[in-house]
Structures are given as structure tokens and as C-alpha cells.
């Protein structure tokens, strides 16, 4: 974020200079291209006047870019710490929904592990510990919903039991598919306490497909995608259980 803003400021300042420079060059070569110019007017004294004018336009634009570039740089500097603090708080609050407070005495936001999931995607695993022992982990899982990719956060304890699943971002239809959000309905809470054998793996499907979980009226693809994402998340845990829970 910060780097992006600094780059933007530099870009603005450079754009100002570039325009300034470009205008001067254009003025410099303009007399050579005189024949193309309109001859009906008093062309003899036109270049001098327009030269000065163009120089001025370039200078004005440059100064404005400099001034506002500076304003942006200052704003960025002032807000930087607060914005970073807010980002950490956001992460914390989304993690606290899937890693209950009473299972850890550390800060899972800073206790991370870099992994790669089955699709080869980089994954950050957040670890909850009590007295140094890993009691649970949380990581992002991905599903492909009705209208695009959805991102969920899944928390699972050291024995493989789900601590909770929450949707972080999705593009599903408002009013139909968005019931997967915890604030729009209790559907997503159904998964808490379940694990790989409970229910059996072949029943981790929506009822329409012969499984145990409700679909929504008018939206089957969305819950199906969530279930698929959770299944893959459970499999990821099963495959990497030792490295996820050993805690070093």
C-alpha cells in the first residue's frame, strides 16, 4: 500500500516534468515544421508567442503535479501507521471467528507458516498455541462460486475438527447466494464441530447431490462451491497434519 502510494506520487511528479519537457521539445522543433502550419495568419510572430504560452502550460501542469504529489505523499505519511494497524486488526477479527480465544494464548496473526496447497497456491497458515503447543490452525480456502472465486477462512483444531468457517470475499448474487455470509444467515455455522469422518466424506455434499447439507432456494452452485472448498481444506489438513501441528 505504502509503496504503491509513493510510486503514485513519483509518477505524478514525473508526469509533470515529462509534460514540461515534452512541451519544450515540441516548441523547439516546431519552427522546423513551419510549412505544415497555417499560413493564413501572421505566422511570422506566432511561434514566439505560442512558444512562451506552451512553456507556461507545461510549467503550470508541472507545478500542480508537484504540489498535489506532495500532498499525497504527506497524507500517505500521516495515515500509514493507522492503516497498517487497521489491517492487522481486520486480520485479527476474521481470525478470532475461526480460532476461538480460549484455545490460544498467543497472537495467531504474527505466528504464521508459509505452505503451498494442492493447487500450488501460496498459503499463509495462522497458528493458535497454548503453552507453546499448537491447538489449532487457520488458513484460507478457495472455491469457485456462481459468479467468480470466493475466499473463505477455515479454522481447524489439532485433531482435525472444524472450529469454524467464514466467508472473507465472494461475488455471489445478493439475496440468493450471499446467505453463506455469517451476518446474513446461520448456514455457515453448521460446519463447526464437523471433521473428515463426521459426516463420512461422501456425504460432504448438498442434499440435492445426496449429501447432508442444505442448499438455498434458487442457489445450489454457491453452497456446492463452499462445500467443495471446505472438503479441499480438510484434505489439506489431513495431508499436512504433522507439519501443521508440530509447531516450530
Amino acid at each position, binding site marked *: 500500500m505504502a509503496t504503491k502510494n509513493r510510486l503514485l506520487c513519483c509518477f505524478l511528479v514525473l508526469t509533470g516534468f515529462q509534460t514540461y519537457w515534452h512541451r519544450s521539445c515540441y516548441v523547439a522543433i516546431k519552427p522546423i515544421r513551419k510549412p505544415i502550419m497555417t499560413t493564413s495568419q501572421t505566422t511570422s510572430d506566432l511561434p514566439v508567442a505560442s512558444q512562451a504560452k506552451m512553456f507556461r502550460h507545461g510549467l503550470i501542469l508541472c507545478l500542480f503535479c508537484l504540489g498535489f504529489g506532495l500532498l499525497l505523499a504527506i497524507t500517505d505519511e500521516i495515515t500509514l501507521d493507522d492503516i497498517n494497524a487497521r489491517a492487522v486488526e481486520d486480520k485479527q477479527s476474521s481470525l478470532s471467528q475461526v480460532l476461538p480465544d480460549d484455545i490460544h494464548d498467543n497472537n495467531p496473526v504474527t505466528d504464521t507458516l508459509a505452505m503451498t496447497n494442492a493447487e500450488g497456491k501460496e498459503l499463509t497458515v495462522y497458528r493458535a498455541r497454548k503453552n507453546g503447543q499448537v491447538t489449532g490452525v487457520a488458513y484460507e480456502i478457495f472455491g469457485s462460486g456462481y459468479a467468480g472465486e470466493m475466499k473463505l477462512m477455515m479454522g481447524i483444531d489439532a485433531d482435525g475438527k472444524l472450529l469454524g468457517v467464514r466467508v472473507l470475499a465472494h461475488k455471489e448474487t*445478493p439475496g440468493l447466494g450471499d446467505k453463506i455470509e455469517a451476518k446474513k444467515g446461520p448456514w455457515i455455522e453448521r460446519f463447526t464441530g464437523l471433521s473428515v469422518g463426521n459426516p463420512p466424506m461422501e456425504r460432504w455434499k448438498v442434499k440435492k447431490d445426496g449429501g447432508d447439507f442444505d442448499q438455498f432456494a434458487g442457489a445450489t452452485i454457491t453452497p456446492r462451491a463452499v462445500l467443495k472448498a471446505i472438503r479441499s481444506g480438510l484434505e489439506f489438513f489431513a495431508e499436512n497434519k504433522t507439519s501443521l501441528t508440530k509447531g516450530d
Partner: protein
Amino acid sequence: MANGNYKTIMKDGLWDNNGVFSMLLGMCPSMAMTTSATNGFGMGLATAVVMAASSYLVAVFRNRITTEVRIPVYILIVAAMVTVVDLGMNAWMHELYKVLGLFIPLIVSNCLPLARLEAFAAKQPPFPAFLDGLFMGLGFTIALTVIGAVREIIGSGTLFADASLLLGPSFKAIELRLLPADMGVLMMILPPGGFIVTGLLVVGKRLLDLRAGKEIQMAGAHAV
């Protein structure tokens, strides 16, 4: 419009020359952000802040900005104001930012601020320009809130849902459920609903103006 006639400026912004219902400008956020009254209200307020600030700045510098480079300078000023609001909101009004954050950058692409800078702020002293920006922005807020309210009532059966996220917990009381949850007409929340509601509201506004015996102002024809 008389110079310095503040009452006219206010009335123009709020009703007579309303950015959405009369000039039909700023349609992008008017469609995208009005799935609920709360969203429309928040987007409108953010736009009002940006418009007031950029109108003021353009008016301050109006004699320094030459005609040839005015458009890039206006866009630069609007974009800088949007970035300042975006960063400030992210840092100090984070709950609001989580609701609106995605849409703040859309203000740059909104042609309403640019239209007011060009038509008004570039020719007026700073204070009237500030007032024009502010009230055009507030008129925009009213329009977006009304469109949002109509779409929300028909589409999801609620009014001002999540207003407490935007305005603080004391506004929990204005969150209403008017229809049972499954009664909503989904189309109203989807893009076509935005066009239908906006169109009907434009017609409604013109009927009201006709009844009041006012001349109908054609879209965008009312330059200063």
C-alpha cells in the same frame, strides 16, 4: 444564475439542477452503489466531501489554470482529493471504509465533479464554488439515498439495513424490515433494477416540477 446568490446555489444543487435527476450525471455510482439506502447515503457523502474540496481548490487556483491544461489539472485535483479521502477514511473511519472502500475510487470516474468544476468552480470565487460543490454533492446524496431506499424496499424488504455500521450503533433503530425476507424482488437489487428505479424517479421529479409550474430543464442544458 446570479453571482453569489447562495440560496439559488443551494436550491440548484439539491433539487432544481440535481446531478442525478436533472443532469443525469454520475450514473456509474448511482447504479452500482444503490443496492441499499445506506450504501447510497455513504457514497453520496464521500462524493460531497470530494466535490466541496475540489471545487474550492479549483476556484482558488482559477486564475492560475490556463484553459489549455484545465482538464488534466481538474482531474489531478479530483483524483488527489479522492486519494486523500480514501486514505483518511481507511485510517480513521475504518468501519465505514470496509463498506464503501471499494467504491471511493469510483468518484474519480464520476463526471459530476468534473462537470461542476468546468461549469461553475472555474468561474466563481472560492466560497460560492465550495457551496456549489457541497450542495451538488448533497443533492447527489439525496438522489442516491432515494434510489437506494426504493430498490432496497422492493428488492430485499428492508430499509437502511446496516445503517449502524455506517453511522454508529445509535442508528440501529432506523434499520427497518418492511417485508418478510423472502418477499424481495431480486431484480431490483441487480443492475436492471437500478436503471428502472432511476428512470421512474426522473419521471417523478419532472412531474412534480411540471405541477409546480416550473420549466423542465433538459439534461445538462443548464450551464452557468
